[in-house]
Structure formats: structure tokens, C-alpha cells
């Protein structure tokens, strides 16, 4: 097991290095610099700024010194926001984005597992078709459409929930969480339906039923653990996706998370912020994938044996 962990961590290092290198050279090669502006910038100013941010050095030297900085955990100063370090910007946004992702995940799991399992219990009936059709719609419905729709109905017409903000007005976390979670709920519904259908057709379930156990005991005690393995495997990438992909929802609902910074950084050519965000999010994705693999292994005896036998 330890060997498995170590080898996965060892694999992560070259992956991260490739990510850093590719991103670094791509952002530096992109046309337009961080300091170009609509109103002409005097050459004196450009010179002073480039010297200050070491942009006057050859790119390879900037790259080496950047690698040195990130090894010590310093993502450098933001170009666009003088006075703010990239670490500071990430730290300001990540708790909010993580909280949003967490609630969205709860929504996704709650809706997804319930309807997926329900559908699997009565395959090919209305109880199956209705949620699965909705799930298909959920997958196809982009959040930039769902978000404003929810706001118009529940925020403006019915006045049940605030239309924007995060932690400012009671209830303002509901709509963003639902908007972000719905697409994932749809995936989870389909995954859990598939997983459950497979498990429910197996012999040990038939045995359980033959013993005279109630259907709910069969589902909860016997089928769920195996049936949800595909969902567990999906959770890691899903959580990483929620963190990295919250930009649209953050913009629609005016949430001060990291998603908005990430996209703006690209438009602003804020080199250090783009790089910092990319490295930070790639690391998170690697960690979450690892965690969800570990949980899958723990849940699945077959895999567990394979790993421990080398």
C-alpha cells in the first residue's frame, strides 16, 4: 500500500513539472504583455515595471528563477494587483470556492444518488425514465443558463432567495450550490444507476432477498457499497472540476472565489497569477484523484488484494 502511494506521488512530480513548464512558456509567448494598456504607457514606465518584475531578463533565466521561487512555496507578486501576492489572492479565494464546491457536491450527491438508486430499483418504469431524462437535461444544461433561470424564478419573481453574494445575506449560498451541483448530480445519477443495476443482478443480492430481508435492507446494507464504487471513483475528479470550474457560477452570483481570478488573470496577462493558479489547481486535481483511488481500493476487496500482492 505504501509502495502504491509513493509511486503515485513520484508520478505526480514530472506531471507537475510539465504543467509548469508548458504554462510558463505559453503565457510568455502569448501576444500582449501584462503592462500594455488602452492609453499609451510611456517607455520609462514600461522599463521600470519590467525591471521590477524581472521581465527584462531572458525567458530561460526567468524560468529558472521562477522554479526556485515555487519550490520555496512563493508564487510571486501579482502583476495586475500591485501589493497583492499570488499566494494571498489564492488564499483569499480558495476557502470560498472550496465551500461552494463542497455544497455543490452535497447537492450533486443527494440528488444524484437518490434518483440513481431509485431508478435502478425499478428499471424501465417511470421512476427510472423520469429522473434519467432529467439527468440528461441536467448534463446538457450549461450553468450560465441554469443559474440565471433559477435567479429569475426563485430570486426575482418569488423572492425566496437572494440573487447574488456569498455569506452576505442568509440563503445566498443556495442558488449557486444548486447551479453548480446540478450538472454533477446528473452524472452521479447515471453512474449510480449503472452501478446499482450491475450489483442488483448479482448472486449475493439474490441470496439476501431469498433470506427474506426487506428491500430497503438489501439496498442499504448490501447493494449500496458496491453499487456506488463508480460514483466514488468519479468524486475525486468531480471535486477538482468543481473547484476549477466554478468560474461561471462565481461570475453569475458575484462570489469572490478563485475562479474569477483565474480567468481574469489570463485576459490581464498576469503571468504569475496564471501560473500560480494553474499549479495550485493541478496539485489539487492530483491529490483528489489519489484520494478517490484510495477510497475505491478500500471499498473494493478485489483491488485491495491486487495492490497488496504487488
Amino acid at each position, binding site marked *: 500500500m505504501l509502495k502504491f502511494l509513493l509511486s503515485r506521488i513520484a508520478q505526480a512530480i514530472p506531471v507537475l513539472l510539465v504543467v509548469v513548464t508548458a504554462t510558463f512558456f505559453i503565457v510568455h509567448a502569448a501576444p500582449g504583455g501584462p503592462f500594455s494598456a*488602452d492609453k499609451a504607457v510611456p517607455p520609462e*514606465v514600461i522599463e521600470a515595471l519590467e525591471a521590477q518584475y524581472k521581465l527584462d531578463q531572458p525567458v530561460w533565466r526567468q524560468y529558472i528563477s521562477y522554479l526556485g521561487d515555487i519550490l520555496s512555496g512563493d508564487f510571486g507578486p501579482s502583476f495586475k494587483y500591485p*501589493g497583492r501576492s499570488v499566494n494571498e489572492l489564492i488564499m483569499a479565494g480558495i476557502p470560498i470556492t472550496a465551500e461552494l464546491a463542497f455544497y455543490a457536491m452535497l447537492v450533486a450527491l443527494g440528488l444524484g444518488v437518490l434518483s440513481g438508486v431509485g431508478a435502478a430499483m425499478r428499471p424501465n418504469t417511470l421512476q427510472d425514465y423520469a429522473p434519467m431524462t432529467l439527468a440528461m437535461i441536467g448534463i446538457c444544461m450549461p450553468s450560465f443558463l441554469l443559474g440565471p433561470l433559477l435567479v429569475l424564478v426563485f430570486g426575482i419573481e418569488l423572492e425566496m432567495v437572494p440573487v447574488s453574494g456569498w455569506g452576505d445575506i442568509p*440563503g445566498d449560498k443556495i442558488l449557486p450550490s444548486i447551479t453548480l451541483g446540478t450538472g454533477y448530480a446528473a452524472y452521479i445519477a447515471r453512474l449510480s444507476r449503472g452501478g446499482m443495476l450491475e450489483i442488483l443482478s448479482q448472486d449475493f443480492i439474490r441470496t439476501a432477498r431469498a433470506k427474506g430481508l426487506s428491500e430497503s435492507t438489501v439496498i442499504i446494507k448490501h447493494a449500496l457499497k458496491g453499487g456506488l464504487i463508480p460514483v466514488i471513483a468519479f468524486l475525486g475528479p468531480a471535486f477538482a472540476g468543481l473547484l476549477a470550474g466554478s468560474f461561471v457560477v462565481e461570475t453569475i452570483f458575484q462570489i*469572490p472565489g478563485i475562479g474569477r481570478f483565474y480567468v481574469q488573470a489570463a485576459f490581464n496577462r498576469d503571468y504569475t497569477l496564471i501560473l500560480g493558479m494553474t499549479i495550485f489547481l493541478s496539485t489539487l486535481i492530483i491529490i483528489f484523484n489519489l484520494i478517490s483511488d484510495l477510497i475505491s481500493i478500500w471499498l473494493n476487496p478485489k483491488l485491495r488484494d491486487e495492490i497488496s500482492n504487488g
Partner: protein
Amino acid sequence: MYKSLFSQTLNSALSCSKMFFKYVIIIQALFLLSSCGENETNVSKGNQSGTLYWGNGTEPQSLDPQIATGVPEHHVISTLMEGLVLKDRKTLQPRPGMAESWEISDDGRVYTFKIRNNAKWSNGDPLTAEDFVWSWWRALQPALGNLYAYMLFPIENAQNYYEGVVSDFSQVGARALDDQTLEVTLNHPTPYFLQLLDHYSLFPVHKETIEKFGSADQRGTRWTYAGNLVGNGAFTLEEWEINRKIVVKKNENYWDAENVRLNEVVFLPVENVVTEERMFRAGQLHVTASLPADKIAPYSEMSESPMRISPYLGTYFYRINVDVPHLQDPKVRKALAMSIDRKNIVEKITKGGQIPAYAMTPPGTMGYYPKSDLRYDPEEARKLLAEAGYPDGQGFPVTEILYNTNEGHRKIAVAIQEMWKQNLNVDIQILNQEWKVYLDSESAGEYQISRAGWIGDYVDPNNFLDMFICNGGNNRTGWCNQEYDNLILKVAPAVKSHEERLEIFQTAETMLLNDMPVIPIYTYTSIQLIDPSVKNFDSNIMNHAYYKDIYLEEQD
């Protein structure tokens, strides 16, 4: 009524499946939870507590007045600091700020400001003439990267000092005669100098605070953070949460504190204009920064609409690269300019009350009215194009309009493409580039015709005309006329009377329009939603808000 109808439909639609009842119950439980909180809006709360909720566009880059650029930054900084003069909120005429009075010498070059006795920093320190001298010294340090350093250039030797020609700051024309007297000597009599003093790059900054957090010319130190910043404005910085909000609170040490009626201003960086409009409707904002174009029509149909459209000191125009062979002949450029139906564009496309522009400088800028014979005249345009060797557009190469990616710019470019095809029978392509790429292309002259906009920094024709001097950083058209440069740089600054000066600008602008390296299209408007409880927020051509005057009145 609407509510019950909605939930009925919702319920009947979903009742077919048992599963859905569970969802409905869960969702309703969530909403019940949420509605425990009182349904009080920011606006109703703010009207009681004297808190103004202001939609501020984007997150400010910096609150250092000598580093910042941009409108959101301007709004926040103008609550925290104040220059020598303020302006009348309607007419923008100078009125006393930090200086209670001033005298101008007969030759118009020496200004003597009397700083008020009760001028104080927000920490209680007295504010003196020396503070201004030090602040302006800092503003002229190249290492600071101050994009607005040129606002100080009318001051004697300021430009020379900035460019390193003069190394001794005592030669720059800003001197503190005593604590209360500041003498400013200018290069030339500059009638708009008082206008400049209300710009944040000339605001005083607190020396001790800045030096506490780094050296004076160091960018991005922490002196502008909440808790650190010491200012001299009507408000102090209370909170700054990145991307969430900036809160400023009334400054009790402000010289005119007794007349400041707001207790707090909350600046919300709402980047998405659609979200902003929804927040306004839900009572979360008193004032929005803008309004999506497709919402203008419904708001104008409302009786007692909260929408306000007012002229804005800015021109939407096209640059023409005069180095492109087939665009070298002024006749061609004039033909293009004359075959744009501007009225159609502002009425059918932009729809925000924009004013068709037939000159670069918006009419009425400090009493200036450009003389322009530009008009919509397709017939004359065809004649000009034929004279230039392209009768009925024959042989005219396919020409490209470059614009930065934006739906509004695209629509205008498509309309102009169509108008030129119809009126002149010339083929036009349109090309969009992402903002920074577009900036690069335009500055490098890698374009044929490109969309542009210019928003005035101060109310004077000079600000619109000096951009087209030979090789000026904002010229970017390749157009160069020595005679024009002479008028703008030498003749206009030297004359004494205002009328004479305006005449010189008229002559210069006529030269510009005769050669037509730029095609003016329309004068901007500012379009905002304003809650009726907001009082004393008058419109002016710079769209500057004077927060010390604003107050909130509860509505029934």
C-alpha cells in the same frame, strides 16, 4: 397569487413520481431555512443606516492614487483622498477642497494656494503644503510606474524631472512657502490646470504611512490596505475584501465632516453587467456601474424609470492606418467617413442615447465647439472616392476593420461594413482580436482600420487633440502634421484668452478632420440605474460622483 400558481404547476407536473416529492420537500426545506432571515434588502437597510451600496464594476487594482488607473479605482480613491480643489457636482467648475482659496498671477503661470487651517489627515496629523510637494515628487518617480505622471507635466520642469533631464526636484515648480501656502509655477498658462487638481494622480499621500511600509517609489507596498491607509478624504478605508467589497466609513477628521451625510459607502465589484442589473432589481445596489444594452429599451418604457442616460466625455472612433497604400489619400479616408450613417448606428445598434460624432472632441467641452463639415453624404463620398481613383469602388482593395472581441463592437463593425458596401461598393472584412492582442496590433501599426475609444482625463479640448501629435503614444495612425503639432504644443499653450485658445483648437481640429486619420462615430453616454432614494447625485460629463454630497432618503 403568482407564487401559488407557480408551485401548483410545479407540484402537478412533478406529482407523477414519488421520488420527486422527496426533492420538492428537500428543496422547500432549504428555502424555508433561507427565508428565516428577514427579507430586508441592502437598499432598505442602507437608507436607514446611511450606507450607500455602489456597483463598482471590477475589483480595483490598487488604491494608491499614484499607481491606480481606471474608473472603479477612481470611485474608491475619491472617497479616501482629496486634492487642492473639488468640483461642482453639476458643472465641474472648481470649488475649494484642501485649498480654501487660490490666486492666479496675471501671466497665468503662478498659482498660490492657501491650504485650509483645519486640513487634516484621517489620523489627525495636520496636512500642510509640504505634503503636496512631497506627493508630487513621489508621483514623478519613474520607478513607481505612474501612468498618469503626465497629468503633472504642466508644472514647470515636471516633465524634465520625470525624464531625467533635470535631477534636482527643487527646480520643479512646486514650493511650500509655509505650512499653509503652496506656490505652483507652470510652464505655460494652462487654463485647465485647476481641472487637473481633482485628478487622483495629484492627490496628496501620507508620507509617514508610505515610508512605514516601504520606500517612497516602491510599487505595491501594503500602505493601501485597510487599517494602514491614511488619507484626507471624506471617508476612511474600513474594509477591503478582495473581489467581495470595499467599505469606507465617514472620516471624522475631514475638514467638512459636518456636511458629509453618508455614514458608509460599500463598493461591490460586480463584473457581470447582467448580474448587476439583477442585483439592482433585488434591492442589493443603490447604483449600478452600467446597464446591458438589451435592457435599455425595457427601462426606457417604464414610467419613473431608475435609468439615467447622460453624455459622457468620450468619443467612439475608428483609427485609419495612413501608411496603408490605398488609405494614404485623405480623399479615400473622407469618403469612408462620409458614408457612415451615424444616426442609424446610435438609434438602431447602441440605443443608449449616444450622440453621433462629427469631430474628435465632444461638443461643449469647456465651451468648445469643433468646426466640422463632416456629414453623412454618400453622394459626395462616391465623388471623393472616384477622384481618388476608385470610381464606384472599382479596384479598391479589400480592407479590414480590426476590433477587440466584444459583441457591441462587432455589431457596429458589421453595420459599417454594410454601409461602405452599399454606399461606396467597397469590400470590407472584419477581424476581432482578444484585447491585449488587439492593443499590440494597433500600437505596432499592424492594422488597416481599427476601432477605438477615448475617454477624457480632464475637461479640455487639449485632451482630445494632443493625442494626434506626430508619434504621440496614443496617435497610432501614422498621421503627422508639423503645423498641427505647432498649434497644439506651442501656440495654444502660449495664448492668454480662453476664446483665443478655443479658436486655435478649432483650427487644429479642422486640420485633423480634413486629413481624417480618424473617423469619429459617436459620443459616449453613461447609462446607469439609480435608486430613487439616492439624492444629490447629479450627472456630469465626467460621470464623477461626489460622495460627500450624496445622501439617502427613505422611500415610502
